[in-house]
C-alpha cells in the first residue's frame, strides 16, 4: 500500500457558498459533502454507482457523487438537497413530494429530487416516459415509483404556473 498521498487544495461552491478545503485525492465527493461540509442530506446507498441516493448536481448536471473524486469538483458549482429550500420556503419539487406522498423511508428522496431538478430545468413539461427515463438511475425500494412520477408531474405543473425556475 502506497503511503498516504499528499492533500491538495480545492475550491468549490456548494449551494452558492464558497468552500476552500484540503482533500486527500481518494476522497469521494459524497464523503467530502457529508463529512467535511456536514451536509448529510446527500446519502450513500449502494456506493457502487447503481442506486443514485448520492445524486447531486455538478455544474447543473446530475452526477453520482460516490463516483466523482472531490478533487474533480475543484471549481465546480454543486447543488445538494440542502440548497433546494429558499428563505424557509420549500422548493416546488420538495412540496410536491410531500403532497403526493412520494416518500416512505425517504432514503432515496434527496437523490430523486436532484434528478427531478435537472429534468425540470431542461424540460418544463415532461411526459411520463421522459420522467421514467430521467429517474432511471435512482432506485426506490419503498414506493413503487407511482407517487414519485405524480410528484414530478405536479412540481412541473406548479413551476410552469409560477416564475420559480430554479
Amino acid at each position, binding site marked *: *500500500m*502506497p*503511503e*498516504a*498521498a*499528499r492533500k*491538495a487544495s480545492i475550491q468549490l461552491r456548494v449551494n452558492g457558498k464558497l468552500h476552500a478545503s484540503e482533500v*486527500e*485525492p*481518494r*476522497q*469521494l465527493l459524497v*464523503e467530502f459533502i457529508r463529512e467535511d461540509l456536514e451536509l448529510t442530506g446527500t446519502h450513500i446507498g449502494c*456506493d*457502487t*454507482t*447503481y442506486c*443514485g441516493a448520492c*445524486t447531486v448536481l*455538478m455544474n447543473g*448536471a*446530475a*452526477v*453520482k457523487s*460516490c*463516483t*466523482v*473524486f472531490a*478533487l*474533480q469538483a475543484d471549481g465546480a458549482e454543486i447543488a445538494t438537497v440542502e440548497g433546494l429550500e429558499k428563505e424557509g420556503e420549500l422548493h416546488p419539487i420538495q412540496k410536491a413530494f410531500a403532497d403526493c406522498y412520494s416518500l416512505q423511508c425517504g432514503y432515496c428522496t434527496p437523490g430523486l429530487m436532484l*434528478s427531478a431538478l*435537472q429534468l425540470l430545468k431542461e424540460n418544463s413539461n415532461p411526459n411520463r416516459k421522459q420522467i421514467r*427515463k*430521467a*429517474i*432511471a*438511475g*435512482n432506485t426506490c425500494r419503498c414506493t413503487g415509483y407511482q407517487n414519485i412520477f405524480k410528484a414530478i408531474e405536479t412540481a412541473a405543473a406548479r413551476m410552469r404556473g409560477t416564475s420559480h425556475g430554479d
Partner: protein
Amino acid sequence: MYPRAFTYHRAGSLKDAASLLSQLGEDAKLLAGGQSLIPLMKLRFANPAHLVDLNFVEGISHIQQKNGALHFGALARHAEIEKSPTAAKIPILRDCAAGIADVQVRNRGTIGGSLAEADPSGDWATVLLTLSCEVRCSGIAGERSFQLSEFLKDAYITALAPDELVSEIVVQLPPENSGGAYIAFKRTAPVYPTASAAVQVTVEGERCREIAITIGCVGLLPIRVREGELALRGQRITAKLIESAADAARSAADPQSDMRGSSEYKRQLVGALVKRAAEAAFQRARGEQAEVSHIYA
C-alpha cells in the same frame, strides 16, 4: 468505500497526459469520466498508484462535422452526444448515447473512455463497428490512427501503447438513403446490457445496398455478423431475409452464462434484437420515423 491511496495528477493537455503516463509507468491510469474506473478502484479491483485526470484539459470534448465526417473529442460525454444536433446526423449514435446506463452516468462517461476500456459489455464499440470509424491516438512519439476494428484487440485490450491515449474519434457520415439503429437489452437502467445489436444499412428503393450488423455482450469483442449481412446485401428486403440475418446472429454469438442469463437465453435474445434493430434501420433508411431505445423494465 475508499480506493487505495494514489497520487493525483491533473493533465493540462493531451501531450502533458502522455508524458505523465510515460514518466509514471504502468502504475498510472487515465481518469476520464471515471464511471468504470472509480467503481473498480473502490472495490480494489484496480489499484493504480497514480491517476492522470483528463477532465481539466480544454478542447477535447468537441462534437463537430468536418469534411463529411463527425469528429468527437475523446472527452465528449454520452449526454453531450445524446443532445447534440450534429451527432443526430447519424441516428444510431443517438440511440447509443441516449441509452447508456442512466442520466448521472451519461453526464460523466465519455466516448473515448468507453473505447479505451474495451469492456465486452460496453455500448460504443458495438455501434461504431457498423460505421467507418477511426480512432486517433496521441502519445509522446506523436499521433497514430487506427480503424476501430484494428484498435480493439481483445476484451479490455486495445492497440494503445502504455503511454498513449485516445484523442479523437472520427466517424464518416453514411451516404444518402442510409439508416441505422441500436438496441441493447438491460435488466435495469444502470447495469450493463445482457445483449445488444447494431444494424446500419443503405437502401436503393426496395433493395438493401449495404449493411453492417454487429452484436455486443455476447463474446469477448463485439461480433460482426457477416453471414447475416451476406443474406441481405443486394437483395430485396423481406421479413424472411431479416429473420435469416437474426438466425445468423444467433449462430455467430458466443455468449457466456452469467448472472445476466444463460448462454442459450442470450443467443435467442440477440437474434430478436438484430431483427428489431434491422427493421428500424430499414425504416430510417427509407426516411420513416422509427423510435428505438435500450430496453429495460
